[in-house]
Structure formats: structure tokens, C-alpha cells
């Protein structure tokens, strides 16, 4: 038996489109060509060594029984007919969390060097929001079930609101956050 052995120890991510193979990479073209040859030669292509990380293989089939070339096999996580049901909200939230963390980090030396009401209120806002989002992640991890999640989220919202209100009150009617830390460390 004159068989073609295919050894491809690489990870290949192939999305095969209907019709032609013009937008395939070189390796996939080789594989496709081999399969095509095998179809013509009535032999099988037996891959010897496929890593399990190989996601897709070109699916060889005959269109109208006549011309053997690759047909469609859109094989990836979200098929093309799965339209528009992804929103970027979660991703943007994630980015927002990191940006806020970085901003808060930058506020710290700034508050030390230039204390005053501007940085006081900025710190109040940044600290409250950072804490709100952080506790939100803790809730997501440990609280399950629709009702419990709703209750916990409502409680967190109230807590964060009261915290922000209290900090702003402190900034307005009392010495303010920067001065408070300075006083605490003065003795």
C-alpha cells in the first residue's frame, strides 16, 4: 500500500471558507493538497503524529461528486451564524478596573506632595469606586443564585453610596483625607 504519512507536530488554527483555498496558510495548503491527492489516488492520508492542540483539520469532501476540493467547515468557537450576541460590557469593565487602579496608584504620591481639596475629593471617589468594584468581584465569586446576588449587590451599592457620602462629608466639614492622614502620623 502506497500511503502518504503526514507528520505535523504543530498547532494549526484553520478556518476554512467555502469555495477556494486561497486564504489558507502554507501548511494548510500542503495538507489540503495532500488530501486532494489522496482523493484522486484513492488512498488515505494517515496522520501519524497529531498533537491534541491541533484544532481543526481541513475537511475534504466532494462537491457535486465531481470536483474534490475543500468545503466549508467554519470551526471556531463562535460560528458565523451566531450573530451579535456578545457585548463588550464585561471587557470594558475589566479595563476600567485596571485603569482606575493605576490612577489610584498615581494619586498616592500626588496626595503626599500636593494635599488639598482637589485631591481629597478625587481620592474619595477613586477609593470608593475601587472598593466597590473590588467587593463586586468578591460577590461574584462567592454569592450564587439570582436572589442572593441581587440582595448582595443592592447591599453593596448602599454601602458604597454611604461610604462616598461620608468621605465627601468629611472632606467638606472636617479636615479632609490628606490632612487626616498627616495628623494621624504627626504624633
Amino acid at each position: 500500500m502506497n500511503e502518504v504519512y503526514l507528520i505535523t507536530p504543530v498547532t494549526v488554527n484553520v478556518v476554512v471558507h467555502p469555495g477556494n483555498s486561497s486564504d489558507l496558510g502554507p501548511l494548510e495548503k500542503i495538507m489540503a493538497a495532500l488530501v486532494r491527492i489522496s482523493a484522486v489516488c484513492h488512498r488515505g492520508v494517515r496522520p501519524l503524529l497529531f498533537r491534541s492542540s491541533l484544532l481543526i483539520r481541513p475537511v475534504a469532501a466532494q462537491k457535486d461528486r465531481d470536483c474534490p476540493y475543500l468545503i466549508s467547515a467554519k470551526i471556531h468557537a463562535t460560528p458565523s451564524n451566531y450573530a451579535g450576541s456578545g457585548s463588550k460590557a464585561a471587557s470594558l469593565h475589566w479595563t476600567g478596573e485596571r485603569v482606575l487602579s493605576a490612577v489610584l496608584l498615581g494619586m498616592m504620591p500626588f496626595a503626599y506632595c500636593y494635599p488639598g481639596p482637589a485631591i481629597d475629593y478625587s481620592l474619595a471617589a477613586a477609593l470608593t469606586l475601587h472598593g466597590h468594584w473590588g467587593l463586586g468581584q468578591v460577590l461574584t465569586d462567592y454569592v450564587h443564585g439570582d436572589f442572593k446576588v441581587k440582595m448582595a449587590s443592592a447591599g453593596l451599592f448602599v454601602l458604597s453610596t454611604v461610604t462616598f457620602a461620608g468621605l465627601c462629608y468629611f472632606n467638606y466639614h472636617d479636615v479632609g483625607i490628606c490632612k487626616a492622614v498627616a495628623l494621624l502620623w504627626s504624633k
Partner: protein
Amino acid sequence: MALLLRTVARQGLYSSRSQFGVVYRHAVPMGTTAKEEMNKFWAKNTGLNRPISPHISIYRWSIPMMMSIFHRGTGVGLSSGISAFAVAALVLPENYPHYLDLIHSMSYGPQFLAFSKFALAFPMAYHTFNGIRHLIWDFGKGFKVPEVYRSGYVVIALTVLTSVALAAM
């Protein structure tokens, strides 16, 4: 995987057995969201009163594990502290310097003050430095296991040094 290609490449399969094409082309999205699926999982398993496999009670604790939960712990602790402070600001009648003087008059000497400064500075410093470590991870850097341990030790060292320095001030 290899079986798939072998099966498909075999002669005589081409037109009659297009089931793989069918599988791929006629794939439909699931009717439920991820959130719904997660809720269903929890509802079903808590409803059935299934015991949970031991995990944190049996798995060997590692430095990265401990640092991770300590990051969360300090985060929750600091947040609670800030909230408590805010509520106190709203509720208590006197102003901040008044209560500060009250604490100083009650305190048990300079060691108490130094210790309380350390107790405040330590979680703050740890959360800050480990937070920077997290931000570095978010850029995709430092995920190799030795790097994780190394950055972890750096965070611990910086935390101790900073807290001691701040407590001494």
C-alpha cells in the same frame, strides 16, 4: 482528532457522509446565557444537597495562593475600614482632631502608636505592592512560575520595609 481526518479522507465518504459538514455548518448557538447556566448549576447542586469536594482543606498551600487570598483579604479589610471611617464621620458628633486627641490621651505609650501605624500601613502597603504585581500580570508579563515566586518575594520584602519605615515616622 487523527481519527477524524482518517475517517473523512477515506474514499466513499465524500458525498454521502457529509455529516461533519452538517455538524459544523448547522451549529446553532445555545439558548441560555452563561449567567443562566451558572445559576442553574448552583440551584441544582445546592437543591440536591450535594457535598462539595474538599479543596482548600486538602490542597497544599503555596506562596502564590497565600498571597492571592491575602490580597483579597487586605482589600476587603481596607474597604471595610474606609466604610467604617465614612460612617463614623457621618454619625459621630465631634470632629476628627477631637477624636484623635482622645485616642492619643488614651494610648499606652509610643509603642502603641507605632504599632497602630504599622497595623494600618501593613495591609495598605501589601495591597498596593501586590496590586502593582497584578497590573504587571495584566500586561501579560511575569507568569512563569519562578517569576511568580520572585515577584511575590519582592512584594513581601517591600511591604515589610515600607510598613516598618512608615511606622517609624
